[in-house]
């Protein structure tokens, strides 16, 4: 397949006689042996599946080659081996979904309505086999499916299971996706739908996850704490019977129409083979063996890993690790930066301001994709009749390289100064054609597209006359706009090649070091008088590494790094500027001074909740996990002398004041409990919890704790344990759910697993024009895809300022923030202008309507002139100000009102 020639018209797949199970849709439907995996595939090029192609297998057929209109298929093409020299390698091989066929008691292999969660994703998806309609697998081929009335989700299938498989870890994502699927299913169902999730612990430890879970409960999703052993068919129907034990001990039988197995993740055998070949150490679950302080490093120098390969994780964490891996992988290569990338040559731009308007129109057939429906010849003839149009041409493929070359010539030869292409969509092809304009010496904004394929021939395939009429209308509208286009300038602003990092904890120091090692000067601000933050009090990581010794090294490295300037006892007074050009006033004990920097990283951390409950501060036996870490570090005799120790989880977390999970406390308590057990094996340890959230491979600790006889008692938020003074010890009264009665114990040490709370630093947030969420955490630009960025470019977040997280995640996020910052610092200049808003000061009445609607805070009020002004560097070109402006003073360049009115007027002007 020649990807340069393939125009993704789909003729080949249409003609291919071989049907194959479609992996993208989890084999729920068929595809062809020549295919694109899904309609939005990047690159959108057809590929031959050699396992199923009849020509490759049997030497006969070749239908695709025969019918391909662009000659892209070449069966003589052979597999080639290519040797590449690279500076470093990043492995992101992902995961495979656990295959539940091996669990015969679930009947996945023979009960049609038992499916996996990933199959259910495809059923729910609008691009899936059911077009997003909630349909039972047994009803797939029925004309009028009724859909399920009751769905059950079974959690921990292929996770937290050492009996039926060897996956002892928690897959970390299944609780959340099951909750999501239950809500989506309710949304998609035409009739009321009963959703029940059978679980052991609900693990919604991420940012905003607990709210999502609570919301699902409110919407009627049933959460039943029970691990289901088997699924039985209801005889004579397609129904499925589940037997479970209720919390009070009663045995229940309930039938469902559909059961979804919340399958965990595991490593693909190919990934394990690849790791062996590369010599990378894997842990006992085949995840990358890494230490907490180098989360994306592998055992082989120069090879880095990210995503599910380093342990089960969700999308935001994968994206953070990916950025972290990019930063770590290029650290050693900083001195060869820009040696293998190419610089774009610039061609001088023709001044068209004094030229009469000369529009050229290029109408594309797109093989038969347009030409097979729309009468292209008629459209060409019509375009010729439009005002200011001096040249019209019909192309088989306007996007092909030879047409582009020809277009460049024609622009000069015919003196064209506006170009309209009637073809596919600007979303994929505008950039390509703009490139051609640039090559011809025309400003790239003198270009307009008429979408006569995606919006016309493809969607009106059965009505060629109407499609042709619409194509003419679209061309007329495009030409009307094109006549009013003017060149737009993009300006390059210089970038200050240094960074400001706020916060001298682990996250801040890591980010600062990463940037310094990449060659950029860093100002590191710390409000306290020493570096280290809260990590100074932490004892060990969940893997058992000493945090103190790591921290010592880190602080030393920061101090000896020439490119880092540390500012102690310092706060931010005022911030001016924007991406690449910040100017910040800092306040130190010795007075104020100004720092120029191109980027800012907010790593200002969080703090421990100071409990008012459970006799904290009133009784010497009651302490927090940080206090306990102190005792463990100094080997306090109380650890060895204690007979009874207890931990109470969720103190200040998951309540009304802090409706989120603090993420680290379950692991912290269990790790400390195990440490006490190690030093004092006779101690009885009790842990009072709501859900144990030892996600990922932390689950090993939980299993170990149970094995060592640490006792776990669950409590409900409305029946919290009651703590009373009892001389030197404290008494804890609690409800035992199994016995259904109140018990009490006396403990020498009561450790409270306290919440992590934010500083709610509104001042800092406002200084950098970034938002806080309702819990006071800095709110990133996009929770999934831009987890360390802000909508305000050039400002990044990492560590606990973003959300509570363990050290390895803070470090990964800090490296990610450095990585994102590098994409700015390595730029020669910041491009501003293009499609941005502009305010005509003559028309502006200074009403501030635009200022209030601007989502990017790009508009300021010039008090001297009494008018609003747009900062081109901050404007994203959304045009919200245009709609808000009562006097049409605000103009969106490239989409101005004159142009839009012309399009509107032309829409029905035939």
């Amino acid at each position, binding site marked *: 397949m020649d990807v340069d020639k393939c125009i993704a018209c789909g003729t080949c797949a249409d003609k291919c006689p071989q049907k194959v199970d479609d992996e993208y849709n989890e084999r729920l439907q068929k595809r062809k042996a020549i295919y694109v995996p*899904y309609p939005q595939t990047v690159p959108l090029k*057809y590929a031959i599946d050699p396992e199923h192609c009849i020509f490759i297998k049997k030497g006969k057929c070749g239908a695709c080659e025969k019918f391909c209109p662009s000659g892209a298929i070449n069966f003589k093409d052979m597999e080639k081996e290519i040797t590449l020299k690279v500076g470093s390698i990043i492995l992101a091989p992902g995961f495979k979904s656990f295959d539940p066929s091996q669990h015969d008691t679930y009947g996945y292999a023979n009960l049609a309505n038992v499916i996996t969660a990933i199959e259910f994703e495809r059923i729910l998806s609008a691009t899936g086999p059911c077009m*997003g309609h909630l349909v039972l697998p047994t009803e797939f081929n029925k004309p009028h499916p009724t859909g399920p009335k009751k769905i059950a989700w079974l959690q921990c299938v292929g996770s937290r299971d050492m009996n039926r498989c060897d996956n002892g870890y928690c897959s970390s994502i299944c609780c*959340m996706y099951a909750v999501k699927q239950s809500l989506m299913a309710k949304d998609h169902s035409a009739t009321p739908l009963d959703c029940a999730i059978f679980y052991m612990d609900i693990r919604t430890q991420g940012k905003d996850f607990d709210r999502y879970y609570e919301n699902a409960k409110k919407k009627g999703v049933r959460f039943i704490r029970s691990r289901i052993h088997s699924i039985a068919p209801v005889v004579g129907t397609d129904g499925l019977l589940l037997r479970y034990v209720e919390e009070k001990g009663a045995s229940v039988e309930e039938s469902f129409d559909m059961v979804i197995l919340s399958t965990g993740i595991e490593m693909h055998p190919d990934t394990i083979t690849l790791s062996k070949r590369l010599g990378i150490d894997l842990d006992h679950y085949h995840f990358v063996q890494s230490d907490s302080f180098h989360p994306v490093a592998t055992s082989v120098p120069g090879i880095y890993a990210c995503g599910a390969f380093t342990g089960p994780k969700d999308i935001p964490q994968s994206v953070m690790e990916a950025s972290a891996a990019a930063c770590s*992988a290029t650290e050693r*290569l900083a001195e060869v930066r820009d040696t293998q990338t190419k610089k774009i040559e610039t061609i001088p731009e023709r001044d068209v301001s004094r030229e009469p308007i000369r529009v050229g129109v290029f109408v594309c057939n797109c093989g038969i994709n347009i030409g097979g429906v729309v009468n292209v010849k008629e459209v060409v003839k019509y375009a010729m009749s439009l005002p200011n149009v001096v040249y019209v041409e019909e192309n088989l493929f306007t996007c092909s390289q030879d047409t582009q070359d020809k277009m460049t010539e024609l622009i000069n030869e015919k003196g064209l100064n506006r170009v309209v292409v009637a073809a596919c969509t600007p979303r994929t092809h505008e950039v390509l054609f703009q490139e051609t304009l640039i090559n011809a010496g025309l400003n790239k904004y003198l270009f307009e597209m008429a979408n006569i394929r995606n919006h016309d021939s493809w969607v009106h395939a059965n009505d060629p006359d109407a499609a042709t009429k619409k194509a003419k209308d679209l061309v007329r509208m495009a030409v009307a706009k094109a006549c009013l286009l003017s060149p737009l300038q993009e300006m390059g602003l210089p970038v200050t090649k240094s960074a400001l990092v706020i916060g001298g904890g682990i996250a801040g120091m890591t980010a600062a070091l990463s940037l310094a090692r990449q060659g950029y000067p860093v100002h590191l601000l710390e409000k306290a008088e020493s570096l280290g933050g809260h990590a100074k009090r932490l004892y060990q990581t969940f893997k058992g590494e000493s945090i103190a010794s790591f921290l010592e090294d880190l602080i030393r490295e920061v101090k000896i790094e020439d490119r880092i300037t540390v500012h102690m006892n310092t706060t931010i007074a005022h911030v001016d500027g924007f991406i690449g050009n910040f100017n910040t006033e800092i306040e130190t004990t010795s007075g104020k001074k100004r720092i120029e920097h191109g980027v800012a990283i907010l790593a200002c951390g969080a703090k421990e909740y100071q409990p008012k409950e459970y006799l904290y501060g009133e009784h010497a036996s009651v302490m927090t996990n940080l206090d306990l870490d102190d005792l463990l570090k100094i080997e306090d005799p109380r650890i060895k002398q204690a007979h009874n120790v207890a931990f109470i989880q969720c103190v200040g977390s998951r309540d009304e004041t802090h409706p989120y999970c603090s993420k680290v406390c379950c692991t912290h308590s269990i790790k400390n409990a195990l440490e006490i057990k190690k030093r004092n094996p006779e101690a009885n340890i009790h842990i009072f919890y709501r859900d144990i959230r030892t996600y990922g491979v932390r689950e090993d600790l939980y299993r170990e704790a149970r094995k060592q006889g640490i006792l776990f008692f669950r409590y409900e938020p409305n029946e919290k344990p009651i703590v009373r003074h009892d001389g030197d010890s404290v008494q804890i009264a609690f409800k035992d759910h199994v016995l259904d009665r109140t018990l009490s114990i006396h403990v020498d040490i009561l450790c409270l697993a306290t919440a992590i709370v934010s500083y709610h630093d509104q001042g800092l947030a406002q200084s950098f024009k970034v938002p806080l969420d309702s819990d006071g955490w800095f709110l990133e630009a996009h929770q999934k895809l831009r987890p360390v960025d802000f909508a305000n470019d050039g400002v990044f977040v990492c560590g606990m300022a973003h959300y509570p997280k363990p050290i390895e995640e803070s470090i990964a996020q800090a490296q990610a923030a450095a990585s994102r910052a590098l994409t700015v610092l390595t730029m020669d200049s910041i491009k501003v202008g293009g499609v941005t808003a502009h305010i005509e000061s003559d028309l502006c009445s200074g009403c501030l309507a635009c200022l209030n609607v601007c989502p990017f805070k790009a508009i300021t009020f010039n008090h001297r002139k009494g008018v609003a002004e747009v900062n081109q560097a901050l404007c994203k070109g959304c045009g919200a100000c245009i709609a808000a402006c009562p006097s049409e003073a605000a103009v969106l360049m490239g989409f101005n009102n004159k142009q839009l009115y012309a399009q509107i007027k032309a829409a029905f002007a035939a």
Partner: protein
Amino acid sequence: MTKGKQGSVMVVGGGIAGIQAALDAANSGFYVYLVEKSPGIGGVMAQLDKTFPTNDCSM
């Protein structure tokens, strides 16, 4: 030491992690080879309908 060092990075896997790693490395001045075994990038995320907790479309 510069001698022999390559200003390029290979990223193995074109899922969301691989894509992000490739973008960041490329945008900070390194040539990137993104290697994916299937005909398209996107990985498992492209199969998902919606993503939690924002219910954004996965595409």
